[in-house]
């Protein structure tokens, strides 16, 4: 039973990391209806830039992170300007394809500038069990995972505040509801989109740093984006809390399935189990846990 809880907690904590990536998707989808496939590439690019700055210019990590932040926000604004603005009013699928193109571009660009080798990223947080918990219950809970979860929690709270309480947040929600109506009441659409992409770039940076510190900064980081998809399906594409809850569910079930069902069928089911889970879930609730109910009219 203790082992079960250990796996469960490890799963939940890794689920938080998935949620972090899913958050980037939700932000952009919520505000512009674009499914941003490039989020994974942005995560990769952010982590690589942070490490690259350290390596090439000998900056300390606390200096390179703000610089990377500026770079990511700039990238977000640039994407809006160069890719999305000319594609306003196109089909969703066209925009989706454009972000796939963007993915290729960013991946190529990142590796061209910083090189393709695997790097280590050290944030100064040790990946070791917390002693207090180990002594009292005997379970191993990684300090790094808990810190990551805490950072994620702060980020979500900040985003919730941004969305619900500030003027720009209200503008974002208005744009999400109806582009045309938002324009009519005088909300600068392109400005808002720029902000959203900038924020998404920032979220990508946080995700990139945490994932990079955990698994090393490498090309495989881009696949994290794919892991975020079942999270989105479960939580609903338009819900920030949904991304968190979905992330937790996916993280937990994935680890539990791998440990308890995996051995029966030969292992490696982590790769597809979340998708099948999401798929089954979709059959029951097509809009996800917290998604808006889709009403279709003729």
């Amino acid at each position: 039973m203790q082992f079960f809880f250990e796996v469960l907690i490890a799963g939940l904590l890794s689920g938080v990391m998935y949620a972090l990536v899913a958050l980037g998707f939700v932000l952009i989808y919520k505000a512009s209806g674009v499914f941003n496939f490039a989020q994974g590439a942005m995560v990769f690019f952010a982590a690589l830039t942070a490490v690259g700055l350290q390596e090439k210019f000998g900056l300390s990590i606390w200096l390179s992170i703000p610089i990377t932040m500026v770079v990511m926000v700039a990238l977000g604004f640039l994407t809006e300007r160069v890719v999305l603005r000319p594609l306003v009013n196109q089909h969703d699928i066209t925009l989706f394809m454009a972000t796939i193109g963007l993915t290729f571009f960013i991946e190529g660009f990142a590796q061209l500038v910083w090189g393709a080798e695997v790097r280590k990223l050290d944030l100064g947080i040790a990946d070791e069990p917390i002693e207090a918990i180990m002594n009292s219950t005997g379970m191993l809970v990684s300090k790094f995972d808990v810190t990551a979860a805490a950072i994620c929690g702060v980020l979500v709270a900040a985003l919730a505040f941004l969305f619900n309480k500030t003027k720009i947040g209200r503008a974002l929600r208005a744009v999400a509801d109806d582009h045309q109506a938002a324009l009519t009441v005088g909300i600068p659409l392109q400005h808002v989109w720029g902000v959203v992409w900038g924020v998404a770039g920032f979220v990508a940076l946080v995700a990139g740093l945490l994932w990079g510190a955990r698994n090393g900064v490498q090309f495989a980081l881009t696949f994290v984006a794919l892991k975020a998809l079942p999270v989105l399906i479960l939580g609903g594409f338009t819900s920030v809390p949904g991304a968190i809850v979905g992330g937790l569910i996916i993280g937990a079930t994935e680890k539990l399935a791998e440990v308890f069902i995996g051995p029966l069928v030969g292992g490696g089911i982590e790769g597809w189990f979340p998708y099948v889970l999401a798929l089954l879930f979709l059959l029951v609730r097509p809009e996800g846990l917290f998604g808006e109910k889709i009403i279709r009219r003729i």
Partner: protein
Amino acid sequence: MIYREAGQFKTSYEKDSQIFPIAQDRYAVVALLLIAFVAVPLMATPYVFSAILIPFLIFALATLGLNILTGYAGQMSLGTAAFMAVGAFASYNFMLRIEGMPVLVAFVLGGVCAAIVGIVFGLPSLRIRGFYLAASTLATQFFVVWCLTKVPWFTNNSSSGVITAQQIEILGFKFDTPQEKYLLVLAIVAIMALMAKNMVRSTVGRSWMAVRDMDVAAEVIGFRIMRTKLTAFAVSSFYCGVAGALYAYCYLGTVEPEAYNLDVSFRILFMVIIGGVGSILGSFLGAAFIVLLPVVLSVIVHYTGLPNSVTSNLELMVFGALIIFFLIVEPHGLARLWQIGKEKLRLWPFPH
């Protein structure tokens, strides 16, 4: 002037409902087939066959399959490569386990297996649409590749998970050289493309388009949604399955399940978008573009004399940028350019 249908009167129902109602189209198709079957084999080198023409035709067939699903029936899919894998591995097993199985029948049976898998994974499309569906087809992609890797029976217990395609032999004639394989692929692709061209203007095709445009409305006027969507999945998967089998037998030779990874699915999706969603011709144009682009890019970059790591990343960048550029400049794809060209030809040389 050149492309003008004036004076071509249809005097019977047969004439009115033929595949290519305009005479110029008919001549063009016949000429194209003649060139492909006669002129190209005489001129092309083995390198051109195996590096460009064969993959082009195979990808065109897979693109056609995806275009039926995405372009005509409006169901987004990211699992194309999975259906190709099913086709390839099913054909392999039919050839392996049934004595004296004709290779063409094995291809067809492989396609049928892919169609069955397509129907199973198409079931969610009855409830969900759009990105949700795209994400759920990813499940197909990962599940099928995992399944083929993990179950040793599919790969005939080969320890590395790699299968070697059997010798292709039809009525005692062995297909060995790239040229012969090209002709085989071309024949299959030509027949299936004409079939697709015919299918999309039949009842089935029109019901797909009705569902694509608005499924609720289509249901109201009496189309059965379930049957329509599932036939789209079945037919599309059949095409992809045959393409996958050809990919294994005529292009790669030895295949592992990983050869049909997500990247291939994306490439085929690109071909659909760049060629033109909902266009048979577009499938070919898109496939040609995406197959040729890396070749051309690598040749160009080769002459600049940059190191290899730089070139591969530059290729990625140019590839991505070109896709974005294309989507901005011509979101309806290359097929649309061709259409505009036809309009121009109709009026030329007196455009007023």
